[in-house]
């Protein structure tokens, strides 16, 4: 296990209640994990941020917590034992790709890199980044606080579970809400591996390549279209299961009637202010859906239907501001990655998220001309990188 010495933060901005603040402070100060506090006394934390983004809050950390400032990106990451790259916008907004590529290309070989949020604009860039990291033996992953969140109730599906459908109900602006929805749902794709390429080797069938094949993506961007879809093909069952986990329905209890009962999509229609829906299909007839329910709920929930019809649901729990203790879990996941060199979740997830978001964005723009038009299948994801079974030789 590596001795931790230097953690480098590569930031674009630093402001209160941002991911940059929450993560930087946890690496400077410490955080709670498994019922005890972990101090960060053994860490030397360095920050690189554009000069015009430097502010008094960072000065305070230099003074109070011995944060080290550098104006040279290469100097910041030189000799680092772990690097965290955080963009200036919401988690779903891509970073400065040039800077991200520079970091992954120039960190010491084997130095883990964590990128907060969406690591790039296009799947091609993600693939390129992945290739660089692989060549340089750099553990790499990305994600937001949602990827590391706890669940109410706690449950997980065993790898290999046959899943028919999944739905995440989220809220927020495009593309961050959709990004969070995919962060919640993509791991379920991993649970039910689709092995697309197999080869017989010495009498055994072995997986030679693992790919996710998306056969359809469809977006809906009006409340009436969203509600219509929620009522079709059994999605209402998943919707009811997911929304039953919400603790933050919107609306006025007197005006709307008590909003505890949102399980009827018609109540959804009554409350929604800006509803969107993105639906995805995979090659083995697995379907999943991100429902952006602005005006309806203020939290994140998910429901998953197994092949036998069993439905599981949970809330993706986000502890409240100002502490936003969910960042304790994200910091712990990153810290563990820096210690062990093992990413908490595959970077491959980020490829699929970006890949699908790219299509949804394209559709959103296209729909100005042709509403609800599905993109043409198939869309083939890349081969799974480290973490998946090795191809047979």
């Amino acid at each position, binding site marked *: 296990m590596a001795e931790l010495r230097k953690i480098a933060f590569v930031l674009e901005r630093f402001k209160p209640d941002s991911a940059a*603040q929450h993560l930087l402070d946890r690496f400077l100060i410490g955080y709670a994990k498994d019922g*005890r*506090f972990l*101090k960060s006394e053994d860490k030397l934390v360095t920050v690189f941020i554009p000069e015009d983004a430097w502010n008094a809050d960072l000065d305070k950390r230099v003074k109070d917590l011995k944060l080290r400032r550098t104006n040279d990106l290469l100097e910041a990451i030189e000799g680092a034992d772990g690097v965290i790259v955080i963009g200036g916008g919401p988690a779903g907004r891509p970073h400065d790709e040039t800077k991200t590529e520079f970091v992954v290309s120039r960190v010491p070989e084997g130095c883990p890199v964590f990128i907060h949020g969406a690591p790039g604009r296009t799947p091609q860039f993600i693939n390129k980044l992945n290739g660089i990291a692989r060549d340089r033996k750099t553990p790499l992953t990305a994600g937001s606080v949602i990827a590391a969140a706890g669940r109410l109730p706690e449950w997980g599906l065993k790898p290999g579970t046959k899943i028919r459908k999944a739905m995440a109900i989220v809220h927020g602006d495009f593309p961050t809400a959709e990004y969070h929805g995919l962060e919640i749902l993509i791991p379920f794709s991993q649970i039910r591996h689709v092995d697309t390429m197999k080869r017989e080797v010495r009498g055994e069938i072995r997986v030679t390549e693992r790919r996710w094949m998306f056969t359809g993506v469809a977006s809906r961007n009006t409340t009436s279209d969203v509600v219509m879809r929620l009522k079709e093909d059994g999605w209402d069952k998943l919707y009811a299961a997911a929304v039953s986990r919400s603790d933050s329905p919107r609306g006025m*209890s007197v005006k709307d009637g008590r909003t505890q*009962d949102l*399980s009827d999509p018609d109540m959804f229609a009554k409350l929604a202010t800006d509803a969107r829906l993105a639906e995805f299909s995979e090659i083995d007839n697995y379907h999943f859906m991100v429902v952006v329910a602005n005006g309806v709920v203020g939290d994140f929930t998910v429901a998953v239907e197994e092949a036998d019809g069993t439905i599981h*649901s949970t809330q993706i729990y986000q502890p409240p501001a*100002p502490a*936003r203790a969910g960042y304790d879990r994200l910091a712990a996941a990153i810290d563990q990655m820096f210690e062990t060199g093992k990413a908490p979740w595959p970077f491959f997830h980020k490829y699929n998220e970006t890949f699908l978001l790219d299509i949804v964005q394209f559709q959103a723009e296209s729909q100005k001309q042709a509403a609800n038009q599905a993109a043409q299948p198939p869309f083939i994801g890349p081969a799974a990188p480290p973490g998946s079974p090795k191809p047979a030789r």
Partner: protein
Amino acid sequence: MKNAPRVNIDRNASWNRRRFLAAMAGTAAGSSLSPLVFSAASDKPSPAPDKPRTVAILATKVAKYSHAQHFIDRFLEGYGWHGAHHKPSLQLASLYVDQFPENDLARERSKRHNVPICPSIAEALTLGGSRLAVDGVLIIAEHGDYPKNKKGQTLYPRYKFFKETVKVFEDSGRAVPVFNDKHLSTDWKECVEMVQDSRRLGFAFLAGSSLPVTWRIPSVELPVEAELEESVAVCYGGVDSYDFHGYETAQCMSERRAGGESGISSIQALRGDELWKRVESDAGTKELLFAALARSHSLKAPEGYTVWLPTVDWIRECSPEATGFFVKHRDGFRTTLFLLNGYLRDFNYAGRKKGGEIVSCQMQLPMPPSNTTLADFFNPLVNNIEQTIMTGKAAYPVERTLLTSGMTLAGVDSLIEDGALRETPEMNIAYRPQNESVYWRA
């Protein structure tokens, strides 16, 4: 106390008028304040009845985010439960509401759902007839404009509502399950009398806070007969108010220790230097305090920060009025409750098992409107009320709430006596919990 004989109360028995009258004849013996040694409710529910049952809710006031609103709306509209929207099979048949402030919601709910608001408790329970006509009663006497006593305790009319309910039971020759929200009364004798009335008339009596049944983060079940040595709860809120929630947070774990609950022998409430001297002198309690704090999601940080590791100095700075209640149980077990107003805003537990292992969790109580709009910790509480009314058996022992009511009262006494040790020989409440904690976990 560990070897004291336990009296088995048959909570599952069916009732007829003859048996009811026989029970009433035993009032004198039942109402003594001699040691109360009860057994826990059976874990197995009886078969559900084939017709919808009805409940009456007796409330002090019904306004947005008042306790009564949370209960009433769950019975009228349903609530999320185990991944579905659950509509209770119990029908809300009547309301009695004591106060109607400008922001009253009772009348709107009454009109929209065609539920009568009755002018008296007796009429709410008899639905205007001469005999008890509902299958369960909820007493939600929290919030409202009520006087305070010399100790500063708000005199919510829980005991009064309860006694009027019991009177209807007696007049009708029939009793049904009762739920009392929060602690029983501000008078210990009244608390005991309420429990003894339930025993005398043989009805299931459920009471207390949402804390024992809400989500636990992480989901920690302590097995019965756990080798637990000490409990600490850390929370916030007012005395004679959220302190009760804190005691329930600790007690739903402490009661599962080897030998079960034995009752408490003393309580001492400390503030300021005395409190922190006590903490510094007891490494075990201090360790549990910090273990519980590590489960909090709301620790205050200095200006400009959102995270800061706790130290005693920092806690003192954030919470100058911090209060510690040091409870000694009759078998030597210790419970400490810290009210750290200004430092955190959630409820956290830590307990040490034999050998030093610490179990800890947050018992989640997000407050509306900032952290929730539903306050869904009421969901498991309402569900346990449903179970109690449907089966005729309390989902968990009311003795827990009798004891935590006593802790609340004795803690207030110690506080107003400047931290004097308050001996509590009258609180020798021994009981055993049910095998499975019924907190929300699915």
